[in-house]
């Protein structure tokens, strides 16, 4: 098992750092359906494998929406009751032909059970906070915020139904009564706000709440791995720089103040790695009760994502400081990791949101 992951890591490292290899090649390698069962056209792998790939993508500061489209969307679609529409969409997403991302968040970005509004001691998988409504008569209405990319071919809009369910509706990029408002992000990618005024689409599921909650948590967990990859590279760059840069006639890495700051960066990396490992161990143990499994996944995802997000921002900050002025330039490679860390740290719940939710779930 460890050996297989080691081999995968070596391959993933090479592919991730190959600027010429992108979405199409990743699809051919099966990376867009790592968590999808083989009989559905996926790789039938577990979260450990997805985390290895994501960590290498993060270590190369790849900006493609791997987690949003390759993890969240495919895990979500594979968990829905099978229909022709679901199967067809899943096939084209796995093949890399259609870039589809889920859209569900209210402006607050609130996570399921983050604020404990219902019952402090229970995880409510079917209560993913939503800000779009759906009915057969009036279609989709409302605003979906923080959608992973403005460049998607299709949106999977999760919306509250009049009966209290969570519908999942596929909406085309150019659908009527839909306005896509792009938001520019620090790393040069975009997010979108979808403004829906009675838009129509294909209903993929009428009760997608638990599947969506699980997919969000899986995606948050794998985002932690991607953040960790960025931390790995920022730490390595800083370590090398401390050894190479000379001032006052000697390498600056000989100064104890800088050594200790570098150690603090390393401590954050180790904690992020340990938190991710612990979370992966807990979600890959089979449980017989699906509700408990969802709650374990939520707790694990919040543990890993909270640490990875805060660690990445701390490490970014220290990496720039230890590099000095060169670290603040666009031409030096560190900046790409710093800006990527902002994007990933804020995505799917930042550190504070996950700390809060973790506290609600374990108290």
């Amino acid at each position, binding site marked *: 098992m460890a050996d297989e992951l080691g081999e995968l890591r070596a391959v993933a490292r090479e592919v991730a750092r190959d600027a010429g290899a992108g979405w199409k090649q990743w699809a051919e390698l099966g990376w867009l359906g790592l968590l999808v069962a083989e009989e559905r056209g996926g790789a039938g792998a577990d979260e450990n494998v997805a985390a290895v790939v994501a960590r290498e993508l993060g270590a190369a500061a790849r900006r493609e929406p791997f987690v949003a489209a390759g993890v969240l969307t495919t895990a979500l679609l594979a968990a829905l009751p099978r229909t022709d529409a679901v199967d067809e969409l899943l096939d084209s997403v796995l093949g890399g032909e259609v870039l589809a991302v889920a859209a569900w968040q209210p402006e607050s970005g609130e996570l399921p059970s983050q604020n404990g509004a219902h019952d402090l001691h229970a995880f409510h998988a079917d209560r993913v906070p939503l800000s779009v409504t759906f009915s057969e008569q009036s279609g989709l209405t409302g605003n979906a915020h923080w959608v992973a990319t403005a460049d998607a071919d299709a949106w999977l809009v999760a919306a509250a139904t009049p009966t209290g369910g969570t519908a999942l509706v596929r909406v085309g990029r150019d659908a009527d009564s839909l306005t896509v408002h792009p938001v520019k992000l620090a790393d040069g990618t975009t997010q979108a706000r979808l403004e829906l005024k009675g838009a129509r689409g294909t209903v993929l599921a009428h009760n997608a709440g638990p599947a969506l909650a699980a997919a969000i948590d899986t995606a948050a967990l794998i985002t932690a791995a991607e953040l960790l990859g960025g931390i790995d590279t920022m730490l390595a760059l800083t370590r090398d720089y401390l050894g190479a840069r000379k001032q006052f006639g000697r390498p600056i890495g000989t100064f104890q103040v800088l*050594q200790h700051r570098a150690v603090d960066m390393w401590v954050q990396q180790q904690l992020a790695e340990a*938190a991710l490992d612990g979370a992966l161990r807990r979600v890959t143990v089979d449980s017989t009760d699906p509700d408990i499994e969802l709650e374990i996944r939520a707790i694990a995802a919040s543990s890993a994502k909270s*640490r990875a997000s805060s660690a990445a921002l701390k490490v970014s900050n220290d990496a720039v400081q230890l590099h000095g002025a060169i670290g603040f330039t666009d031409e030096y490679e560190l900046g790409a990791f710093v800006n990527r860390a902002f994007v990933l740290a804020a995505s799917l719940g930042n550190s504070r949101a996950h700390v*809060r939710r973790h506290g609600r779930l*374990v108290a």
Partner: protein
Amino acid sequence: MSVTYGVPQEQDWNALSDDDFREHVRNDFEEFYPRDLRYPSRRLLWSEQSRWYLRMSAKGWIAPNWPLEYGGMGLSPAKLLIFMEEQERCGIARFQDHGIRMIGPVLLRYGTPEQRERLLPPILSCEQRYCQGYSEPEAGSDLASLRTTAVQDEDGIGWVINGTKIWTTMAHDATNMFLLARTGTEGPKQAQISFFLLDLDTPGVTIRPIVDIAGEQELCEVFFDNVRIPGENLVGEVNQGWAVTKSVLGFERIHVGSPQLPMSGLRLLEQLGGALNLVDDPTFRERLDTLRLDVQHLSDAYDRFARQLTRGEALGPDVSLLKIVATETFQRIADTIIEVAGPAGAAAGTSQLGGKDVEILTAYYRAKPSTIYGGSSEVQRNIIAKQVLKLPGS
């Protein structure tokens, strides 16, 4: 073997599953450990806790880390870790157990058969309880600069010790000491040091307890004025003391990073939050939730090193991570307790808040020394910088 060591074990503990072993140990501790000795806020004197450890000795559980043939429990690394975790979880106070933790392993590796037969049985029976003579007034973090000397006596067999040790934990309550003393003048500082065992009743030994800021007497200064040590109490070769010391630190290095102390701090913080009715206070919640995850991630890190030991792998210098994180997390918790307590932040010992018993400064007084003893946080960072990150030397 001409000597019988300790008492036979009831069963082969390593044959049990980890869960079964944990349950067995936990049940025993829960049933028999005296309630009034749980989670003491200071180190207990031997007279206060001897009833428990004499029971452990009689039961054959006094030396969980020693092999069966020498009267230990013969536990595997995984079982040993469980045993120690359960001791801490139950709030069992440690005694001056350096004989068990250090001297046993040292003698098994470097001792002569004569030394083992003479020295191990009184450790198992708790008749001899050792303290650790390492630090000196001029040698703290820079231990290899120690100045206490050992010179061979007139007959060329025994040794004469002169010098001072300091910060010796509970020396006034121990019967014996192991100490490092300078025996050479050639070569690197580390290669001039030898490892000795000393009976604290020997003439020329003076022990002065030092009162700490918590008001307790746990640390001591120990003076040696022409103290004579028999030749048979040198452990290992002359000038080999540094290696003797380092060889047995493996398990200690993971144990100082155990999450149990920070967990005990969290419990105190939660009790305080309950007493002050702060459960729904958003600021308190955020601090508590953050600290809780800090402890969770320390536990995750600790588990990785524990699995490494369980697989039979040696621990590398990166295990310093645990001491840094465990002690600094504990201190953050202790600081938070004081802050949350508000006007009660200076209350010593157990006090009453909101009609409930709470402890305010207990965590602080336990946490503060932990970033100093056993290699300060700064020394641990030096180790990581050089041995893990391989940053250039100055």
